[in-house]
């Protein structure tokens, strides 16, 4: 995109205001693809336990770019562009599976699970000097942290651990030190801009999700902290069990069983731009998100057990994961409808205003209370700078 065509948007002067139009403008979305999704950020595309065996693969999408994540026969998990090294045909059409080789049906070029070209018919008639060695499946830059596989399509992205910064320990505490075992997926599509999902805040939780009040379920001590350089948000809190309740007959889905080194701890990390990592009660959840277009966002809720959990613990995790915090969860279903309505409402003029927890409209904070909405503002400032939007002087 040449500089002359870069879309502009005037950002309000006050730190707690955001222009609503950025949720709905297609030209902004296209710029986000370039600057964020294909830009100098890391994007989580899989957890190693989703592809546990040699040959296991998963397909995913970042910024409209199709990706193929493969547990290669040599044990390494690699990420390839899902596109034949020959004429660019999509290599794998399934969302998951197991293959030792990947063949493009168009001209039968065949690749090993390590991406090397191992077969190409009629190669004696190819251009002079042709060598298979020069035509592996192409890869974006790949890195791994806590068994999470990340990619970036930019050479300018700093090393992954630097990019993760202060939320690194929170991720480690959320996912634990022992290996995880995949329990399954809930895949849904929201009729909303991707930024509405990642703008979900601490203020709304006890208000929108009535189950908290009905259960008299109050959080223990907690805090949100911000990575002022990269837009990540971390949350740490105590888990307080629900007391006696007559609201539900089966209270086991709101019980807490796990005994691990971080007992009593809830951990949430929202990585910029869209990945969510959640450890709450006995739920271990990663939310992989695809910004499909300006008004469609796909979210894959992926749930895990610990590999060494006993049978009853696995059962507890399955029941709680399915019914509590996902798209049909007791304390979360309402979010999807709100995303939808934010998208409709954002087609009106003016700004979205943040109030709860805002102590000054002139500066950002690196730590706020657990039920503040101001925790998102540092992320918005990072977004604004990344997108090159000027802040109004008045």
């Amino acid at each position, binding site marked *: 995109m040449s500089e002359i065509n870069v879309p502009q948007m005037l950002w309000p002067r006050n730190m707690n205001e955001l222009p609503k139009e950025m949720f709905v403008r297609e030209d902004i979305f296209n710029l986000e693809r370039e600057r964020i999704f294909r830009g100098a950020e890391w994007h989580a595309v899989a957890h190693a336990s989703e592809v546990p065996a040699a040959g296991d693969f998963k397909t995913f999408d970042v910024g409209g770019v199709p990706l193929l994540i493969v547990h290669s026969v040599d044990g390494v998990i690699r990420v390839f562009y899902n596109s034949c090294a020959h004429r660019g045909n999509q290599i794998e059409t399934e969302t998951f599976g197991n293959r030792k080789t990947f063949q493009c049906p168009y001209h039968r070029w065949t690749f090993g699970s390590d991406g090397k070209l191992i077969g190409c018919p009629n190669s004696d008639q190819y251009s002079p000097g042709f060598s298979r060695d020069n035509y592996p499946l192409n890869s974006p830059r790949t890195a791994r942290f806590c068994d999470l596989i990340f990619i970036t399509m930019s050479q300018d992205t700093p090393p992954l651990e630097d990019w993760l910064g202060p939320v690194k320990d929170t991720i480690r505490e959320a996912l634990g030190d022992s290996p995880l075992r995949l329990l399954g997926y809930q895949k849904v*599509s929201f009729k909303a801009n991707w930024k509405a999902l990642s703008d979900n805040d601490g203020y709304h939780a006890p208000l929108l999700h009535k189950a908290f009040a009905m259960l008299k379920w109050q959080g223990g001590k907690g805090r949100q902290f911000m990575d002022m350089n990269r837009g990540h948000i971390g949350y740490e809190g105590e888990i307080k069990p629900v007391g006696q309740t007559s609201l539900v007959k089966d209270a086991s889905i709101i019980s807490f069983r796990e005994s691990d080194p971080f007992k009593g701890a809830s951990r949430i990390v929202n990585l910029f731009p869209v990945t969510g990592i959640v450890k709450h009660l006995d739920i271990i959840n990663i939310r992989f998100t695809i910004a499909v277009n300006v008004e469609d966002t796909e979210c894959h809720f992926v749930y895990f057990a610990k590999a060494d959990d006993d049978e009853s613990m696995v059962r507890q995790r399955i029941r709680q994961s399915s019914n509590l915090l996902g*798209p049909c969860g007791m304390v979360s279903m309402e979010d999807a409808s709100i995303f939808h309505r934010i998208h409709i409402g954002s087609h009106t003029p003016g700004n979205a205003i943040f109030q709860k927890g805002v102590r000054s409209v002139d500066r950002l904070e690196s730590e706020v209370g657990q039920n503040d909405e101001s925790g998102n503002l540092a992320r918005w400032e990072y977004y604004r700078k990344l997108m090159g939007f000027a802040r109004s002087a008045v």
Partner: protein
Amino acid sequence: MNRPSTNDVGLIDDLQARYIHALDSKNFRAWADTFSSAPDAAYFCISAENVERDLPIALMYDDCRDRIEDRIVFIEKIWVDTFQDYRTRHFIQRTHCDALASGIYVVETNFSILYTPETGRSDVQVVGVYKDEVVIEADGARFKSRRAIYDTVVLPRYIVYPF
């Protein structure tokens, strides 16, 4: 292959009609009453992708009678007034019915659900197959378990009501 009696097939089809009528008219008490009163009566709503991979996570995991009852509480007490409502219409086709034991049948039924939000534009919500265990009781047939296995890999918008 044990062919079901014509009378039992009639009772099973009547059960399916009661199930659909209950959901499409949002009578969730009547929905729960299509399930056996046994403590282990179960309703699951799970993706075909998870089933194929032998992964247990479901969209709705009501593995006991109490959980089925609690789903009514989710819908009518907890989530009420937080979402834009929508109408549903279920369309079904029974494809398989086999007697497992006396008065117990395994039944498979294709389903599609169309939905219409308040703004009026109708669309497909989800497509899949019900895999059921049905018991013939004194006053009619009921689900011992119903598994709504949906083909739709990515569900649209938001889901409030059971499939």
